[in-house]
C-alpha cells in the first residue's frame, strides 16, 4: 500500500468518525469538533488526489494542494461563526443545547 492510499483511507475513516460524533454528541461544541474532523478527513482525501496527480516535474499536483490551504482557512472561519452563534444561543436560553424540545417547552428556554 502506498503512503498516499494509506493517507486516503485514513481520511475516509476520519470522515466516518466525525460523522458519528456529529450526529450523536448532544453538546454543540463537540458537534463542531466532530464537524472539523470530517473537514480534515475530506482535505486528506483531496490531498492524495493532489499527490497522485504528480506531473510536469512536480512531486504533486499544486492545484488541489492550494485549494486545501484556502479550504483550511475557510473551515476555520466557518467554525468561528458557529462558535459565535452557539455562544449567543446559549446566552439567550441559559442552556447549552440544540435540543428543539428545550426551546418549545414552557420555562425551558427561549427568551425570558
Amino acid at each position, binding site marked *: 500500500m502506498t503512503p498516499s492510499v494509506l493517507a486516503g483511507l485514513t481520511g475516509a475513516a476520519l470522515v466516518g468518525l466525525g460523522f458519528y460524533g456529529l450526529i450523536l454528541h448532544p453538546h454543540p461544541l463537540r458537534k463542531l469538533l466532530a464537524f472539523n474532523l470530517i473537514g480534515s478527513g475530506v482535505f486528506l482525501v483531496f490531498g492524495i488526489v493532489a499527490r497522485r496527480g504528480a506531473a510536469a516535474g512536480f512531486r*504533486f499536483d499544486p*492545484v488541489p494542494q492550494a485549494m486545501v490551504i484556502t479550504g483550511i482557512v475557510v473551515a476555520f472561519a466557518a467554525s468561528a461563526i458557529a462558535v459565535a452563534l452557539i455562544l449567543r444561543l446559549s446566552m439567550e436560553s441559559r442552556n447549552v443545547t440544540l435540543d428543539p424540545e428545550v426551546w418549545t417547552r414552557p420555562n425551558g428556554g427561549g427568551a425570558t
Partner: protein
Amino acid sequence: MSVLPVLDVVLASLVIGVALFTIAARDLFASVVGYVAYGLLLAFVWIRLYAPDVALTEAAVGSGVTGVLLITAGKRLGALKNAAPEMRPGLSLKILTGVLAALVAGALGAAILMLPDPPPSLAPEAAAAASGAGAGLENPITAVLMSYRSFDTMLEKIVLILAVVGVWSVGANKAWGSAPAPLRQSRPYAPMVLLAQTLAPVGVLIGIHIFWTGADAPGGAFQGGALLAAMWMVTMMARLAEPPRIDAQWLRMAMVAGPAVFLVTGLAGGVLAGSFFAYPPGIAKPIILAIEAFMVLSIATALPMLVAGPPSERPDQ
C-alpha cells in the same frame, strides 16, 4: 528506506486513535486537547504527502488557532454554569449511527481505491502559471494561489471578512462598537508575560520570513499571516495587549486591505494586461508579492478577531 512505511502505518493509526479519543472523550477540555494533538499529527501526514505548505497551514490554523477558538468558547460557555440537559443517545440510535458512519467511510474508502489511473492532473497548467507571464515564482502553490486561481484566493479573503462581520453581528445590540472580551480573565502572570514578550518579536520575524520565502519555497501569505495572527493572540492571552474596539478605523482598514488591493490590481490588469487578474509581464512577481503583503495584513488581523468573538460591553463575565 525500510523505516518510512512503518512510520506511515504508525502515523495513520495514531491519527485515527487520537480522532477516536476526541470523539469519545468525556469532557470538552480533554477532547480539545486531543484535537490539538490530532492537528499536529495531521501536519506530519501532510509532510509525508510532500505538502509542507499544507502542513504549516494545518499546524497553525487547523490545530493551533482552532484549538484556541474552541477552548475560549468552552470557557465562555462554562461561565454560564448551566449544564446541558443530559440526553444520552440510546443504544439503538448509537448502532444505527455507527452503521451509517461506517457506510459513509466505506464508500469513501472504496472510491479512493478505485481512483482512475493514470490520475488526471492540472500540474502542467500550474507549471505554466508559475513560469508564464514573467511570474518567475519557484513555488508552484503560490503560483496557483496568486496567478492560476487568483480569483478564488481573493474571494476567500472576502469570506474571511464576511465571517468577521458575522461574528461581530451576533453580539448584543448595545455592545456594538466596543471591544471583544479579553482572552484572559485574571491578571497576567510573570512567566506568561516573559514568554509573550520574547516570543512575539521573534515570531513576527519568522512570520515575515515565511511569507517572503513563499514565492520560491514552501510558505506564503496564508502561513505567514497565520503565524503573525498567532503572535498577536499570544500577546492578548498574556494581557500585554487587549482586543481592539471593533469600530477602530485602523482595524477595519487592515482587514479590508488584502482583498481591496487584490481587486484593484485585478481590475488594473484588465485594463493594462488585457484580461481580468492578468499581471503585466516582467513585473508580475513584485506585484504578486505586494498583493501578498496586504493579504498577510488582512489574515493577521482577521483570525484573532474571529477568535476574540463578538464585542462585549463588560470585561468577560
